């Protein structure tokens, strides 16, 4: 610690404590010197890489979630449009197809959701991204 800085700290503390004895001064000198001479903190060499990997994993996961959500939504909209389109088909096979799709809509929805969850879990647990 620089002598000037030490002197400043001692003067400042003396103003707070009142007049120092020589013993007080020696003790504060020891204290200030040791406080400013703290051992360096131990930081792992790869700490920055660990943080960056974690940040990138989070960013990738979020972009994947958005992508899967987009495709799941797109698939559901497409299915709904198919049902609506088949509504105009008055033939027996058209009606049958429409009934099949609308009757199985909860199943289609669940299937899409399961696909979305599996893909996300695969990213996180298996590929570790």
């Amino acid at each position, binding site marked *: 610690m620089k002598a000037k800085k030490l002197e400043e700290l001692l003067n*400042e*503390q003396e103003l*707070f*404590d009142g007049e120092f004895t020589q*013993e*007080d001064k020696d*003790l*504060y000198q*020891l*204290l*200030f010197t*040791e*406080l*400013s*001479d*703290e*051992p*360096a*903190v*131990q*930081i*792992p060499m790869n*700490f*920055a*890489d*660990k*943080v*960056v990997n*974690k*940040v*990138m994993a*989070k*960013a990738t996961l979020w972009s994947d979630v958005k992508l899967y959500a987009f495709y799941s939504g797109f698939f559901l909209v497409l299915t709904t449009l198919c049902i609506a389109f088949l509504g105009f088909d008055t033939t027996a096979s058209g009606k049958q197809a429409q009934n099949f799709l609308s009757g199985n809509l909860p199943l289609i929805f669940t299937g899409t959701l399961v696909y979305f969850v599996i893909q996300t879990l695969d990213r996180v647990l298996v590929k570790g991204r």
Partner: protein
Amino acid sequence: MYTEVELIQSVIKGDIYAHRRFVKQYERLVFYVVSKIINNDEDVQDLAQDIFIKVFKNLPKFKAESKLSTWIGQISYREAVNYLKKRKRYSDYSIDDYTANVIKEPSLNPEEKSISNDRGTMVRAAVAKLPERYRHVVVLYHLDEYSYQEISEITEMPEGTVKSYIFRGRKMLKEYLSAILQNEQL
């Protein structure tokens, strides 16, 4: 070489190199603040990672009203204190309790006796015995990184309180050292 503004902008844009550079630049500060509040090395490392993630997330909101190091110090301090509170290890007992239990206590435990020969270890042991708030402001001040006003921003205590805690904390440390040294001479 990045300036501080360029570094912030590059991090916000998602530049991986800038992220790494940012961590390298401020890791010592984050580790120092956190390790002075939390003693467990493993917890310090985990928390330091979470702090950087929080810093990156909130970086677009950084208004440059204070120094970037003050803002990072503020986040580190809050996160470390919250971490202790969650684990109910945060004690903020009064100065009177401290003086009654530590400073006025003339006898030293065997561990303190064995370390009293090493002045640096002795001072660190004394600092560790300070009440939480006193310890935090004293170590932040002697990091030589922050002014009283910046410590006030980091700890969200009025500047006058920060100064008072620093001076009183140092006085407590001086009395503690005096007690140990007197005991040594007996």
